[in-house]
């Protein structure tokens, strides 16, 4: 026990002496949390729209006007013909082109219906989808106005099913509220996994690992000596992230903070376990760095941090069964935004517990003192 404490002390001495790394470990998570939260915003703004007006009537102008005076759209201008519209799309200057055919007003009045064409650049699929949605709403709105005038009935007197949405747990659909609990945990992998893995591989590289191996240090003492400092540093980082989330981003902390810390502790154990395992199978820091990076990117992309996991293909769902980040992000969001109790997130707890203990178990087994 005494020896383990001494190993931990030595580890902290080394970490505090490496002032650049220490500052990076403290500053990076806070900076990333702030930057990522502001950047990871799915609201689509500044959609550029061009109009090919083949009708030149009041109706056509009124429709164009609706697009001109809405925040999300930026009116690029009128285009003379179809061909130049294509050119604008191709050059990336326009995101959408609205084509109003000749006789638009006449058809709408006489035949009780007219068609419009909307060309959408789908280079960025999700942006195109959202843009189409916006445009359709505007056109429907225009349609309602026109119909009311032509048929001359009051807009409200027609029986209409009106759906009013209420967004629970995030009433204003704030992306910040949604992102912070996720990013908060994602960052813990960096210190827990990456720094821990690199630290141990470095001991291998400079030969101190071998020197330690000829001493009476036992395997569990070594592993405990390595685990503890990084879990502690991770908890400090978590605290800072939590403070930034609550005081800077005004994220509601509905659930128990103790529960959050409990999960943060478990998750950090898991991360350092992953780091230990990676360091046990790599001989150089490059190898370790690559392995950590591979896991990190895979975990993040599949975790549901940016896109919902339910819509992912079946194979991704299977991979996600062992993706610790997915569970912890679910926990973070549910506990912070919804106030879930332990009972609500116990599935995630057991999943994380199983992953953590298998990683640490596997790492201890791989970490052999004699080759």
């Amino acid at each position: 026990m005494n020896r383990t404490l001494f190993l931990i002390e030595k580890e902290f001495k080394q970490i505090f002496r490496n002032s650049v790394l220490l500052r990076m470990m403290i500053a990076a998570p806070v900076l990333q949390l702030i930057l990522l939260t502001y950047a990871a915003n799915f609201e689509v703004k500044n959609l550029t729209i061009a109009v090919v007006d083949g009708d030149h009537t009041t109706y056509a102008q009124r429709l164009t006007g609706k697009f001109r005076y809405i925040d999300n759209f930026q009116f690029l201008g009128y285009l003379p013909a179809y061909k130049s519209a294509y050119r604008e799309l191709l050059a990336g200057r326009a995101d959408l082109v609205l084509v109003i055919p000749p006789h638009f007003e006449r058809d709408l009045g006489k035949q009780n219906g007219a068609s419009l064409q909307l060309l959408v650049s789908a280079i960025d699929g999700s942006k195109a989808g959202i843009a189409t949605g916006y445009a359709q709403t505007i056109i429907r709105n225009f349609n309602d106005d026109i119909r009311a005038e032509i048929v001359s009935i009051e807009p409200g007197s027609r029986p209409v099913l009106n759906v009013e949405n209420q967004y629970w747990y995030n009433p204003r659909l704030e992306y910040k509220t949604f992102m912070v609990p996720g990013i908060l945990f994602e960052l813990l992998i960096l210190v827990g996994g990456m720094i821990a893995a690199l630290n141990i591989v470095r001991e291998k590289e400079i030969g101190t690992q071998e020197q330690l191996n000829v001493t009476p240090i036992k395997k569990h003492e070594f592993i405990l000596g390595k685990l503890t400092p990084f879990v502690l540093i991770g908890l400090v980082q978590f605290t800072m992230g939590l403070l930034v989330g609550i005081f800077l981003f005004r994220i509601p902390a509905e659930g128990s903070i103790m529960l959050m810390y409990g999960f943060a502790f478990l998750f950090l154990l898991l991360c350092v376990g992953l780091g230990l395992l990676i360091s046990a199978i790599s001989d150089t820091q490059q190898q370790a760095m690559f392995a950590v990076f591979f896991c990190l990117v895979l975990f993040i992309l599949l975790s549901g941090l940016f896109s919902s996991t339910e819509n992912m293909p079946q194979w991704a769902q299977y991979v996600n069964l062992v993706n610790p980040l997915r569970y912890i992000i679910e926990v973070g969001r549910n506990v912070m935004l919804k106030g879930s109790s332990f009972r609500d997130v116990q599935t995630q707890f057991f999943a994380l517990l199983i992953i953590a203990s298998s990683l640490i178990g596997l790492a201890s087994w791989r970490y052999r003192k004699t080759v």
Partner: protein
Amino acid sequence: MDAIVIERISKSFGETKAVNDVSMSVKTGELFGLIGPDGAGKTTLFKILVTLLRPDAGQATVAGFDVVKDYRRLRTMIGYMPGRFSLYPDLSVEENLTFFATVFGTTISANYNLIRDIYVQLEPFKNRRAGALSGGMKQKLALCCALIHKPDVLFLDEPTTGVDAVSRKEFWEMLQRLKIHGLTMLVSTPYMDEANQCDRIALMQTGQILAIDTPTGVEQLFDKPLFAVKATETYQLIQDLRRAPFTETCYAFGEYLHLTTHAGVTPETVNRYLIMHQHQHSEVKPIQAGIEDSFMALMQHG
């Protein structure tokens, strides 16, 4: 009882037989040298003895404990100084020493008398980070760290490689002084001129032991006439001598060539041959074989 007993130890890495059926023993309190060129298998043999590698075949005991079965007990009784500097470069001299003392469950003061001679030289730099020490100082610190738990047997793997001539000499003097404490030491080195510092030596090549004896004993293994030869045209001289009918081997040794001949050859025979080949200022004198000569001869005949 012998401090180190090695019985038919073998270890291969894939196709390469790093250590091939090696047997030897080192007496308690002996300063034993393992001498051989790079790639002879010295480091592999060391790693087996300090419980870092398991042998493929054979048995070995150090201080009476089996290196495989009793590795845990053994680790408290041996000191190992690897060939490469393997301490924490970001910890200070004192912190490194305290660290290794604590890891072995002891303190610096408990065994200070063992390291005093060496540590006094380090003391002025005790707050300096180990990574910022000079090569010779690093060596001394590593030796201190290997000694701090008062081991019974000390393993030094190429301690003088890459160290300047003065520090090398100093280092061997330190080892000589350590013998007073009854420490058994196994030292490996590629430098044959260091062999004379040891009580006994083993010559090792391509995983096998060629000879084990005292330094003088190894020199006496050389049983053929040996001459030091010199002339103005050294290159031509070596070419001519290698073609001579009486020659067995001929190597360059500093300013002289060492010429080994068949039995019964005299300096006059050699001189006559040189004059015949128009060498000027030639000089031929019979000499006593050194360890290097013995080693060269043993390498030739296996």
